[in-house]
């Protein structure tokens, strides 16, 4: 299959415009998503991943605003489009599954009524069309269409999350953006939801952007991985390559932060310290205060994102080769 980008993000920056000055939450981020690709975005809370997603979906609300860059989706630059123009694209071609999908459903409306709302907001459909399509998407995610008449509280957490994903499938979009859709679920439900998403993706051919802070979760599901730290991309490459040979010290730290149920029990350290406050990012490399390999240069010179082997990485010591694998 030829590599055909569905989404192209170029030099995107997002500012929170505050009285005490602007805070740059997303800084000069560029990436593409190809048709049918699964892109994982990982990073700690406060690294700008959710802001980035909101910027891609054009859902930013004041005080956040896109400061620079473009988001090209299906050949159209979405930045600067009016709500009316966006409405033709949203949900039909690009849909979003939010972090707390459990709470994103309206508790006083049945699932079916909410599906109907979504369809009617983005096109003209007869009642029969709506119920046929609603039943179809619900079946796709393994829920009995009977539940179209259920209220959200009658479904379990996993089912609610699946219903949200079904809702995102209503128009068979080209791109589905998911912001930690599994974070409220336990491991068994989480695993089955991930398998479900992957199956749907293979059957319907849509692209996925999946944001999470748990790298192990997407290790088996994503094609490419983008690691974000303090609003910037630190590493971008094929998932397997990154897991086998993480280049950025932050990526290494993330990979070593979770224990395994297999192999010997080894003491872990996690990543000492906390992510920086975006209104006062460290000079030089933004990761240097937490980096075990930092040298003097890292505190003054800001590294560029540059290609190394098959990946892109932002690390001075990798760039000049003074940090071996």
């Amino acid at each position, binding site marked *: 299959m030829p590599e055909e980008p569905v989404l192209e993000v170029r030099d995107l920056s997002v500012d929170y415009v505050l009285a005490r000055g602007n805070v740059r939450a997303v800084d000069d981020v560029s990436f593409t998503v190809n048709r049918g690709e699964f892109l994982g975005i990982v990073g*700690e*809370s406060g690294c700008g991943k959710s802001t980035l997603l909101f910027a891609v979906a054009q859902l930013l609300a004041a005080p956040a605003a896109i400061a620079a860059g473009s988001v090209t989706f299906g050949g159209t630059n979405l930045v600067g489009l009016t709500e009316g123009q966006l409405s033709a694209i949203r949900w039909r071609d690009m849909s979003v599954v939010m972090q707390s999908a459990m709470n994103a459903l309206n508790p006083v409306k049945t699932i079916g009524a909410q599906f109907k709302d979504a369809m009617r907001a983005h096109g003209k459909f007869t009642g029969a069309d709506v119920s046929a399509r609603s039943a179809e998407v619900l079946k796709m995610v*393994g829920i009995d269409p009977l539940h179209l008449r259920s209220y959200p509280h009658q479904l*379990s*957490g*996993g*089912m609610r999350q699946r219903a949200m994903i079904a809702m995102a499938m209503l128009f068979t979009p080209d791109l589905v953006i998911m912001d930690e859709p599994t974070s409220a*679920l*336990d*491991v*068994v*439900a*989480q*695993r*089955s939801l991930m*398998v479900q998403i*992957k199956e749907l993706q293979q059957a319907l051919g849509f692209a996925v952007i999946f944001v999470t*802070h*748990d*790298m*192990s*979760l997407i*290790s*088996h*599901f994503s094609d490419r991985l983008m690691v974000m730290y303090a609003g910037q991309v630190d590493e971008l490459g094929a998932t*397997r390559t990154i*897991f086998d040979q993480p280049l950025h010290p932050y990526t290494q*730290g*993330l*990979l070593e*932060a*979770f*224990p*395994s*149920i*297999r*192999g010997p*029990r080894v*003491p*872990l*350290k*996690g*990543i*000492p310290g*906390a992510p920086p406050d975006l209104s006062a990012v460290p000079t030089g490399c933004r990761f240097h205060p937490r980096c075990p390999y930092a040298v003097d240069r890292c505190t003054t010179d800001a590294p560029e994102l540059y290609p190394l082997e098959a990946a892109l990485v932002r690390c001075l010591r990798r760039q000049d080769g003074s940090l071996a694998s």
Partner: protein
Amino acid sequence: MTTTDLPVPAETPRPRTELLRTDRLARYFKIGGALSRRTLHAVDDVSFSIGEREIVALAGESGSGKSTIARVLARIYEPTAGQVFFEGKPLSAMRSRADRLRYSGLVPMVFQDPFASINPVFRVQHGVLRSLKLHRPELSAAQCEQEAAHVFEVVGLSPDMLQRFPHELSGGQRQRVGFAQALAMRPRLILADEPVSMLDVSIRIGLLNLMAKLRDEEGVSVLYITHDIASARYVADRLIVMYAGQIAESGPIEDVLAHPRHPYTQLLLSAVPDPRAPLTVAAETDRGEPPKVIDPAPGCRFRWRCPVAIDTCAQVTPVLAELRPGHDAACHVAQTSATEVKAFS
């Protein structure tokens, strides 16, 4: 990081002295309207014990009764049936205010959500000083402040953090404040209800190391409630797996993970994401849901999701039986077959 922060490997079992024991504990909830007779069996017939200086992990999916057990142990709920014994004495006998206060100081709880469990309008010292005043009235004001600074240091916070407001702290720091508050009361057993699940992966390890440190240096036991088996393995000595309000399997954690006998434990282990495992999407996946345990009939509660269920499973509720040293499972199939049955892998 010093070596004292490292968890002690399970290969060196300590002699166990029992600290707390539950005997056929049950907690039911009435559901529906005033005329409804339906009851939800959140916890049913649960017996286990926690030793001194021991971290016991209580694992299971949402709705399996883990938090209900913690709340019964914290005396937030009264048990519907059964008994809890602490240091050999039944909780039901501790009726006076002094007894209850003493118990809640010895067995404090740390909650899941570090953003909701600290009062946002007070400085963080408020919670610590209040528990000191309540539980250790013999201390003078100056001693209280000293003690507060001491427990902050133990949990890895600098004492000047005491003057901060909760919103100035990160999630990991707030959860450390939760442990500091518990520690100020000189506890024997900390009930930690999903203490790390709301935190970033990179921060979690620090708190798990803290729990191990509290066990090793302060001699505190921890009931660590989690659905994350990997973190349980990292820090715990024993594992109890709950399913639908009952114990499915329990034993020394390494033994349970190496030889899971209950099909549900096997399912749980197969679902743990592991980037070190080969990159394959498992063909068979479980699409089942945990049952709502409303007025249950006898029989194994896992049988609808169990690929190896036999006729007996629909008629007789399985009870825990020892299958390996110190390692129990409540499964008819595992108890009757000579070889280890693999339902999920």
